[in-house]
């Protein structure tokens, strides 16, 4: 038995090594995704390009615009003379926000109630929201410096942000990336490799030999398990060295729960392969049924709470969702088994059900 499983594993490793496509998915994709998500796709918006239309031309108005552009949140790109200049600025994407300080600003300030206007380019809605918030807090800060004694709000918030004090998005993205990459390797690559053996007829050749179906499953799948776990480890190390993402929990617990997630992903791959007749079909089904939900419905890119109700219901059956709660918990918070009981139970339940179904259907197909 061991002999047959080893023969299958060896062969699978040779397939992987000689196939550029799987090599790219296993080794290149994780690195690329970490770099892209780590460097380029930060959700922290910095340096919003701001233009100022100062109709007041007073000391007070100049102080306000200086105070805003001195922070790292705004970059002063232009000083405007008239409102007609605003639209061309937005159309050419040179500025995202324009601050208009009215003629009466200085007098109003003395009177105790001054207003400024902000015009925002909301073609990109999420950046627009961030810009409004930055402007609001920038103005508040400035108001406080002007007259702290007179301006005393009845309530103030003193935020202490735990686990990710600088609110860096890499902290948030890296655990998600691990889930997506593991899912890709396990579901996509295994469904394609089995579909390929069906296409070329080699699966039939294996079925006429004394190999048991579960030996085929173990032999074909274990190389991908090993590679998926290595990839997970690689991403963690890379994230730690390059982006200083901490690892606060138990690595043993992380490994154990990763294996459960990997089994769930493999089972999905196996199920796809029993239905897909060709490699292309397997790949399409795998991308639609695993990659898309893992990216969009898992809480990786968008918080589950912000999803519409229907999608939130669907997300209940996305294994990546549970694994994300688990790996964010372990990596960022140092959570232990007792705190992760619920997602772990769900994930284990999924793995068992999916594995059961996939083994049953796999047997039926020969």
């Amino acid at each position: 038995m061991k002999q047959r499983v080893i023969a299958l594993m060896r062969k699978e490793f040779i397939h992987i090594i000689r196939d550029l496509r799987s090599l790219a998915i296993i080794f290149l994709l994780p690195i690329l995704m970490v770099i892209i998500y780590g460097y380029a796709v930060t959700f922290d918006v910095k340096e919003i390009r701001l233009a100022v239309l100062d109709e007041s031309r007073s000391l007070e108005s100049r102080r306000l615009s200086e105070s805003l552009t001195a922070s790292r949140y705004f970059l002063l790109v232009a000083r405007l003379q008239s409102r007609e200049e605003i639209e061309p600025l937005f159309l050419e994407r040179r500025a995202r926000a324009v601050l208009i300080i009215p003629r009466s600003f200085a007098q109003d300030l003395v009177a105790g109630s001054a207003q400024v206007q902000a015009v925002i380019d909301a073609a990109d809605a999420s950046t627009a929201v961030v810009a409004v918030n930055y402007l609001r807090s920038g103005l508040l800060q400035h108001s406080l410096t002007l007259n702290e004694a007179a301006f005393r709000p009845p309530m103030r918030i003193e935020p202490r942000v735990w686990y990710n004090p600088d609110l860096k998005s890499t902290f948030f993205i890296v655990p998600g990336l691990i889930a997506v990459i593991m899912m890709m390797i396990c579901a996509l690559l295994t469904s394609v490799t089995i579909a390929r053996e069906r296409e070329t007829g080699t699966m039939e050749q294996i079925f006429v030999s004394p190999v048991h179906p579960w030996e085929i499953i173990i032999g074909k799948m274990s190389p991908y398990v090993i590679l998926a776990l290595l990839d997970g480890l690689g991403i963690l190390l890379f994230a730690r060295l390059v982006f200083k993402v901490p690892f606060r929990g138990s690595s043993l617990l992380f490994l154990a729960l990763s294996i459960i997630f990997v089994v769930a992903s493999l089972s999905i791959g196996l199920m796809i392969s029993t239905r897909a007749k060709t490699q292309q079909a397997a790949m399409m089904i795998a991308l639609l049924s695993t990659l898309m939900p893992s990216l969009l419905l898992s809480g990786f890119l968008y918080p589950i709470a912000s999803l519409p109700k229907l999608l939130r219901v669907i997300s209940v059956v996305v294994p990546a969702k549970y694994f994300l709660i688990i790996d964010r918990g372990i990596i960022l918070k140092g959570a232990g088994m007792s705190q992760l009981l619920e997602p772990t139970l769900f994930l284990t339940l999924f793995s068992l059900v999916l594995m059961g179904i996939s083994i049953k259907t796999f047997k039926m197909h020969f």
Partner: protein
Amino acid sequence: MTEEYSIVVEQLCRRFGDFTAVDHISFSVKRGEIFGFLGANGAGKTTTIRMLCGLLLPTSGHASVAGLDILTQSEAVKQVIGYMSQKFSLYEDLTVAENLEFYAGIYGLRGAAFRRERQRVIEMMGLAGFIDKLTRDLPTGWKQRLALSCAVMHHPQVLFLDEPTSGVDPIARRQFWNLIYSLAAGGQTIFVTTHYMDEAEYCNRLSIMHAGKIIAVGSPSELKRRYRKSTVEQVFIGLVKAGEAA
């Protein structure tokens, strides 16, 4: 019975929906015989071979291979048969040596036994010059020999060949049949399907299949005598025409 016969088929039947691919066929194959299964495409040859190899369940009927029941002892059957499909199921991205090693591995051959068998098939099939080549770079005739090598390394008692010579040139086909003869001389039973009439002449005994039924069984010379024809091809055409008229 089991001593003398390698394959015994009784009233074997397979339906796909309303279509009856194999319609209550019965025949037996003696040990060490080269038994040809002749028929047009779609006559039910491949369906029969797939049932005997355990790839497909019969709708009804019985069959035994090497004395083992294909329904109740299918795992044991797999130990004693070799199978080569018309697609030459090889891994194109593996070298010749790696394909041999893999197929030996799934039959549990290793160590000294594996090296001995590997040497045997390499010599027998003349694969020495290709051993480290990628299988996808081999000419079709050599792929066919490699597929046969992979199917016989574990010394199967019964070897099933499903249209093993399709797409191969006449010289390679002739050489391939020489290999089949030498395997049969070693005591292996060979069950081969074909639609090439010249190949049918090489078999010890033949069964002619048409529309899921066996319409004649006998040695090529017997069949030619019985139906008063000079070639198997004429026998076949005569029988099929008679079958369609009836």
